[in-house]
């Protein structure tokens, strides 16, 4: 099971936050194929958000093939997120940590790091790498 929480000051729309949290849970293995997502009613009763927002998030996850709605039963996880395995995660994290140390030594602060990472990520997306 997953419990959603909202960062109300983040500027990220609520439905996207829900989508990201499900994906994150799939990556980390806290949600696995066959698991049920909370019903719209359960989510709105804890977060006081519009139920259509929850349905929109679930539709988006369904469109991406990650979950499926079973009429009268609820929404269930269909598959985990294919991608890097846990071992690869660890390896990539190590090299990122090394990069951060390197950048720190070169005099970049937290904000510089974030800006640089965002720019590289955006460029990669443009080139179709990420």
């Amino acid at each position, binding site marked *: 099971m997953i419990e959603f929480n*909202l960062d109300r000051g983040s500027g990220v729309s609520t439905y996207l936050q829900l989508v990201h949290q499900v994906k994150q849970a799939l990556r980390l293995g806290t949600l696995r194929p066959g698991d049920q997502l909370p019903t719209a*009613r359960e989510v*709105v*009763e804890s*977060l*006081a*958000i*519009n139920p*259509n927002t929850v349905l929109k998030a679930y539709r988006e996850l369904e469109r991406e093939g990650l979950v499926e709605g079973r009429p009268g039963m609820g929404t269930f996880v269909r598959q985990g997120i294919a991608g890097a395995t846990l071992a690869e995660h660890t390896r990539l994290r190590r090299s990122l940590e090394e990069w951060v140390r390197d950048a720190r030594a070169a005099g970049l602060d937290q904000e510089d790091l974030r800006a640089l990472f965002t720019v590289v990520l955006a460029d990669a997306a443009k080139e179709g790498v990420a």
Partner: protein
Amino acid sequence: MRPALEATGLGVRYRRTWALRDCSLSVPAGRVAALVGPNGAGKTTLMHAAVGLLRPTLGSVRVAGEAAFVAQDKPLYESFTVAEMLAFGRRMNTRWDDAADRLAGLGIPLKQKVSGLSGGQQAQVALTLALACRPDLLVLDEPLANLDPVARHDVMRSIMAEVAGRELTVLLSSHVVSDLEETCDWLVVLNGGRLQVSGDIEDLLDGHLVLTGPEGASAAGTQVVGASRVGRQVSMLVRGAPPLDPRWQARRPGLEELVMGYLRSPESAALPGLTGVGA
């Protein structure tokens, strides 16, 4: 799909003053619509006309099915117990669901006198009475006014759970826009008795941009809702695609920015089927 609430050329005049003029809008079924605007904008008048508490001077307003209305002052009899309030509701209404379970679930004692309840509990009792009529449209005038943050959250959770549970449309007014950000999916802005905005909130936010740039940058191709200037910097709320001039920084507005942008420019409007926007 048939709209839950539809107003056509609605006008309401009190003696010589028009409280509402030429108001045409429709709210689709299943939506939670926020009705915002400054004091005296005509919010309460629109609600009263919608639920039949006053007769329009001009035009018409129609609700699909039954409407329930909770006025701002939470109309409960102070000397009644909660149980007596429920019995009263049962006698006064033809459609009535037993609501005692709901109140028990909220921890509100049925034997307690209304006057002895907290503001949040009174709001929950008023809301419960309205929901017990099983309305198709629930109209709430400032449901969160005078409530502490926890009670506000609880009242909103109750309303949202009800919307999730069955086909219910909600129209609620507030002048605290941040209370509505996560809960409403339809926006109606009234200003000075006129309708300025009516539409799906996501579509509205996607269709507008906040531009920041130097004085003299060209915003050609966009429709300017409102602009403000500090020194040589200009900030604008616009409709349409980002302008070509690269000196602009563009981002999506928040709900509060969108509402404030329109309220500050009463001549601007974002209504379905309307393309012209005042500059």
